[in-house]
C-alpha cells in the first residue's frame, strides 16, 4: 500500500503544493490529470527524491520513504524529454541501471535483449541515440527505467512531445507492458482521453491541490461536460 499525506511545498513565497494526499494500490496506475503549472512535476520530483517537501508523509508498505536517498528509493522519474545518454548506444542506455548495480555480463545481456524484444527495439541496439525516432527514444527511456523493475514509475507526460499516431502506438505498448509486468505507476497527462485509457484510478490536480476519485464513474460524473463535448465531436462523422 502506498500512502501520501499532506505534502506541502512553496518556492519563494508562492505555494506550489497544498496538503496533497492520495493512495495508490500496488500494480495499479493512477492517472493524474492537470494543466501545466498545476504543480504535478514538483510533486513527482518530491516523490522521486529530487526535491525536498516542506512537510508531509510518504509511506511505501508502511516504511517512510522521505528519509531514503533517491538512489535507494527504486522510484524512477520519467519526464517528457527522453533524456537519453547521447554518448552511449541504445544497448548501453538500456543497460545503465544494471551496469551500476554491477550485474554479471551475460545475465545483463539477456535481460537487455529480452526487454528490447518487448519494446520492439531489438534491431536498434547498437545504434546511437541521435539516429532514433521520437517514439523509439521514448521507448528506450521507458525500457531504461523498467529494466531495474522499480517499485513505482512516475511518468510526467511521457508522450507529450510525440506525433498523434506514434502517441497511440506508445499508449498501446504501455498498456501491453502493464499487463505482462506488475507495475505501479503515476501517469501524469493533460489529455483527458489518455488519462482514462492509461489509469485504473483517476485524480485531478489544479493550483497545487489534488483530488482523488474513488472510481472511474465518480470521475466521469464530475467531467460530464468535457466527455459529452468529446462524444459530440465524434458523432458528426
Amino acid at each position, binding site marked *: 500500500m502506498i500512502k501520501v499525506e499532506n505534502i506541502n511545498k512553496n518556492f519563494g513565497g508562492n505555494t506550489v503544493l497544498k496538503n496533497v494526499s492520495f493512495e495508490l494500490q500496488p500494480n495499479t496506475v493512477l492517472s493524474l490529470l492537470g494543466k501545466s503549472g498545476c504543480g504535478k512535476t514538483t510533486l513527482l520530483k518530491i516523490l*522521486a*527524491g529530487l526535491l525536498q517537501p516542506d512537510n508531509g508523509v510518504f509511506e511505501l508498505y508502511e516504511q517512510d520513504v522521505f528519509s531514503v536517498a*533517491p*538512489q535507494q528509493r527504486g522510484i524512477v522519474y520519467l519526464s517528457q524529454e527522453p533524456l537519453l545518454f547521447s*554518448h552511449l548506444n541504445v544497448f548501453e542506455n538500456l543497460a*545503465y541501471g544494471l551496469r*551500476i548495480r554491477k550485474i554479471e555480463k551475460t545475465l545483463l545481456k539477456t535481460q537487455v535483449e529480452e526487454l528490447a524484444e518487448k519494446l520492439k527495439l531489438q534491431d536498434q541496439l547498437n545504434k546511437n541515440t541521435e539516429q532514433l525516432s521520437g517514439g523509439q527514444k521514448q521507448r528506450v527511456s521507458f525500457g531504461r527505467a523498467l529494466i531495474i523493475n522499480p517499485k513505482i514509475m512516475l511518468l510526467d507526460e511521457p508522450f507529450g512531445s510525440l506525433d498523434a499516431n506514434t502517441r497511440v502506438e506508445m499508449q498501446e505498448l504501455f498498456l501491453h507492458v502493464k499487463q505482462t509486468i506488475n507495475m505501479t505507476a503515476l501517469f501524469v497527462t493533460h489529455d483527458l482521453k489518455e488519462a482514462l485509457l492509461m489509469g485504473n484510478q483517476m485524480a485531478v490536480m489544479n493550483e497545487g491541490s489534488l483530488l482523488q476519485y474513488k472510481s472511474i464513474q465518480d470521475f466521469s460524473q464530475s467531467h460530464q461536460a468535457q466527455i459529452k463535448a468529446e462524444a459530440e465531436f465524434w458523432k458528426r462523422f
Partner: protein
Amino acid sequence: MKKRIVLALYFVITIVPLSMGFGYSLLYSFGLAGFINNGFTMAHWQKLLANSELFITIGYTIYITLVSLFFILTFALLFSWWLVLQKNNFVFNFFFLPLAFPPLIAAFTWYYILSPAGIISRIVYQFGAFTDVNEFPRLVNDYFSVGIIITHVFLIFPLFTILFVQQAKKEQMNSLKETSFTLGSTKAQFFLKIFMPLLLTKTAPLVILYTIFIFSAYEVPLLLGQSSPRMVTVFINEKMTRYNLQDIPQGHAMAVTYTVLIIGITTLFIRNIKTAQ
C-alpha cells in the same frame, strides 16, 4: 569562373607555401639545397637518428603534452562539475582572464612567480621557511619542467572549463543527473559514467586541437625549459641557429619529421570530425 579563381587563391595561400617550405626542408635535410651541402647524403639523417636526440626530444615533448593535458582536463572537469551544479557562480567570471594571455607572457609571468628569486620564493622566505635561496625547489628550467606544465595548464584549463560548462548546459546535464539518480547511480558513478565521457566525446575535436598546440609550443619551453631535453620546436630552432653549421641540415630534418607527424595527426583528426555543426 569566379569559383575557379577563389579556389586557386585559396590553394595558393594554404597549401602551396606549406608544400614549398616542406619541400625545401626535405631537400636541405638530404643535402640537395643550402650552402654547405654538396649533393645527396643521408649523413644528416643518420647523425640525427644515431645520437638519439630525435627520440629524446619527441619523447620529452609527448611527456609534456600528455601531462599538461591530464591536469588541464582533470581541473576543467572538476570545476565544471561544481560550476554546473551551482547556478551562476561568481568565480566563473575569473575563468575568462587567462584567455587574454599569449604563451609568451604567461611564460614570462610564471617565470617570475616560480623562479628561485621569484614572488613565491620571496614570500616563503619572508616567513623564514628557509635561509638559503637554494633550498627553494626548482620549478623553472628544471628537469621535470614543472614551470612549463603549470603555464600550459594556466593557459588552457580555463578555456576547457568554460567549454565544459556550456556543453553541459547544452546536454541538459542537470536533468540527466536527476534521471540517473532515480535509476540508482551514485554521484561518483554519474560523474564517471555520464558527466565525464559525455563531455569528452562532445569536445573531442577541440581536445585534439589543443593537444597539437601544446605539442607545438615554442615560447613557453624557450623561457621555462632547460638545455636538455628540449621540446621539438626549441630543438629545431636551436639546431638552425647554434654554433655548428653542420647542425643546420639536422634542424631541417627534424622540421620534416615534425611536419610529417603533425600532418599525420591532423589527417586522422580531419577524418573523424563532422564538417560543420
